[in-house]
């Protein structure tokens, strides 16, 4: 039975490719006219989705929550930094060299978590909220088959939703980041250096990629599950798992299976630690945390383990921007790859799915 099914799929894949070739050949003639009409249809979808997001209560509440928490954490960071600055004039001079501006995003006085923590925590939630009912709500409302009967390629629907959600995120986070920067200048009276500014922009882009990952996971679940509630809960479960439990699971695994007591040499200890780190890095939230740390704290010189011998000759100075970027390059690539893989699976499943008004 299973073999038969697979055989059919293979067959389908082949005929798909063949038909695509034929479609391409057939479509050569009035391609220009067609693409113009099609692009206006695509922008119509994006516009409508964007309008839907902006007017839905779900989004309004989430965005309000994010704004509130971010400004709350910003306020505590600002008061902490200002107190430190006011204590002496010398502090001001030191501050200029110490990437004080970036501290706005990372410092907290203990009452409220820092801006980075909040974004890392609420960003996924926003992504999931944007994506979890993208396809199945259309299906359940019976609008999907109506949409499919219009002269638009099928992937416009899923692409349009993704683009709209990503645009909303981009606008939200870029404006949030720039607002924080502007407020920082106003309150602290210290302008950010170009390097600090580039680090902030990079950080925001990274946030965007991270949220896009959760968005795509939401979209994937919305294609997989017919019920919006199921897809929302499963996406939230994945999010909780990676945010809270994954580290614990890895720790338990490291303790019980890798037997730290049996380690006798340095090499063993290093390889043990590297394995644990490698496992941790399977979690997108860990990747995000690592890379934001490296980006916003230039003092972080490495994300792996270093032995005492290796640090012996090192100069204790912050890394330049380009080196920090180099440091997080693998993490950023992995995050982007995870995002793309999620989207690719969702896209593939959606393109193959039967469009039926009911059932």
């Amino acid at each position: 039975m299973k073999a038969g099914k697979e055989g059919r799929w293979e067959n389908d894949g082949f005929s798909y490719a063949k038909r695509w070739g034929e479609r391409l050949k057939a479509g050569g003639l009035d391609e220009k006219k067609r693409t113009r009409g099609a692009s206006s249809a695509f922008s119509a979808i994006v516009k409508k989705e964007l309008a839907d997001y902006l007017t839905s209560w779900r989004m309004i509440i989430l965005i309000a929550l994010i704004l509130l928490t971010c400004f709350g954490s910003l306020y505590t960071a600002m008061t902490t930094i200002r107190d430190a600055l006011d204590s002496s004039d010398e502090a001001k001079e030191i501050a200029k060299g110490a990437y004080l501006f970036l501290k706005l995003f990372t410092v907290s006085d203990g009452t409220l978590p820092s801006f980075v923590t909040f974004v890392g925590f609420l960003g996924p939630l926003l992504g999931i909220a944007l994506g979890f009912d993208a396809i199945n709500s259309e299906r359940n409302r019976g609008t999907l088959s109506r949409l499919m009967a219009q002269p638009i390629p099928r992937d416009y629907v899923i692409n349009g939703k993704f683009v709209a959600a990503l645009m909303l995120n981009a606008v939200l986070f870029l404006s949030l980041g720039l607002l924080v920067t502007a407020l920082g200048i106003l309150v602290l009276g210290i302008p950010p250096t170009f390097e600090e500014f580039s680090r902030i922009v990079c950080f925001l882009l990274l946030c965007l990629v991270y949220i896009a990952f959760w968005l795509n996971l939401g979209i994937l679940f919305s294609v997989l599950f017919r019920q919006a509630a199921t897809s929302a809960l499963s996406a939230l479960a994945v999010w909780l798992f990676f945010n809270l439990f994954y580290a614990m699971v890895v720790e338990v695994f490291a303790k019980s299976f890798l037997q730290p007591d049996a380690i006798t040499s340095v090499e063993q200890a290093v390889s043990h630690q590297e394995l644990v780190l490698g496992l941790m890095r399977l979690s997108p939230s860990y990747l995000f945390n690592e890379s934001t740390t490296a980006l916003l704290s230039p003092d972080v010189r490495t994300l792996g383990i270093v032995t005492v011998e290796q640090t012996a000759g090192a100069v204790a100075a912050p890394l330049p921007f380009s080196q920090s970027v180099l440091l997080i390059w693998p993490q950023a690539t992995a995050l982007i790859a995870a995002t793309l893989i999620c989207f690719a699976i969702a896209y593939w499943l959606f393109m193959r799915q039967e469009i039926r008004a009911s059932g």
Partner: protein
Amino acid sequence: MAAPAVIELNNLCKTYGDHRAVDHLSLSILKGEIFGLLGPNGAGKTTTILMMLGLTEPTSGSVRVCGIDPVRNPIDVKRKVGYLPDDVGFYHHMTGLENLLYTAALNGIPRAEAEKRAWELLEQVNLTEAAHKKAGKYSRGMRQRLGLADVLMKRPDVIILDEPTLGIDPEGVRELLRLIRDLSRNEGITVLLSSHQLHHVQQICDRVGLFVNGKLLAEGNMERLAQQLFLQDSYVIHVAASPLDASLRAKIEAIPGVNKVEQTENELDVYCQTDVSAAISKTIIESHASLFHLSRRHFGLDEIYHRYFEGRDAR
């Protein structure tokens, strides 16, 4: 000469696993015609429609709609064909008018033109007052009418309606069917509608195809359908006369062409191969009985359907 075929299905098959949803279906629908695809739930009507639109790929066989192959050029087909799915849905938070305008945008119709067309269509389907009402507040009948307007936004050559009358009250059904007929007659639109509600289909269809378990059992207009399905007993004549005794009944049974007579008090149902109304009335008058009523019962689809499935496994 007959109009050219707009929809042509040739040996169309679709299998899901072991289940054969559509089985060697061949059918051609002519331009300007209203064709009713009739069959019980799960007969493969929706699957057939989806294949016509290129939303599902046939396992084997070919489809041509307006001369285009929907498997290869689904978008070109969808430019010419309007499809109203069963249980059509609209975006709840948008008004009826906004929903229509969105469809227009997806079809690449410029905004000004789209607005003009939307208002025309809303007037046509009698929803002008509800134009600014949220689609989520529409009743089922209103939604179905808005669906019809939505389908017509792109000025289609063909419209395919999947169970358009499902769940609407009788008055709504009549109105919808009148609308569909007017569209077909006045604008020359070819209409394919599927239904399991036979008397609805019967009212407006030029031709009907009876579709069961993926197979087309019979097609044609009502009379031909009856002849195809029941080689004998194509006519039923209903007679009310008094006194209706055994001798009269025997005389009627003796009329050539009569196959069977069923009696209920003073009424008779005469099943016959040809129309023998004249002979029956003559027999009654000549036996000095009074004839109160004589009518040829038209074969409703209900009748056809019921009699077809009578005594056999419908599913």
